[in-house]
């Protein structure tokens, strides 16, 4: 099963509301093997 490396894009354009859910890959944080 492939962990995704996708994230919710950081809002560059003006947004009405901020995203309520954000996804990060289990491999997407610095400081692990």
């Amino acid at each position, binding site marked *: *099963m492939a962990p995704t490396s996708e994230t919710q894009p950081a809002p560059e354009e003006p947004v009405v509301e901020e995203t*309520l*859910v954000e*996804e*990060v*890959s*289990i491999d997407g944080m610095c400081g692990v093997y």
Partner: protein
Amino acid sequence: MFDPGLPYRCSPSVALRPEPFGALVYHFGTRRLSFLKTPQLVDVVSGLEHHADAHGAVEAAGVAQPQRPAYLRALAGLAANGTIEER
């Protein structure tokens, strides 16, 4: 397709861990990590299994009317990535 008129629940493959800002959600099957960025959304998601439909869970969590569409969109996303499922 997510239908807010149907009953939902957290997937049994998912673990939800409350945090100061909301919650961390981990799907053991897909290894996907999601952050629920408000405590209210955490209440909605945890409450799904106790309500007849998703609308009910959103209302019971005290989500203000203007925010409800955003919360339903969030639930649709969580259904799409397997965090919640029809029950």
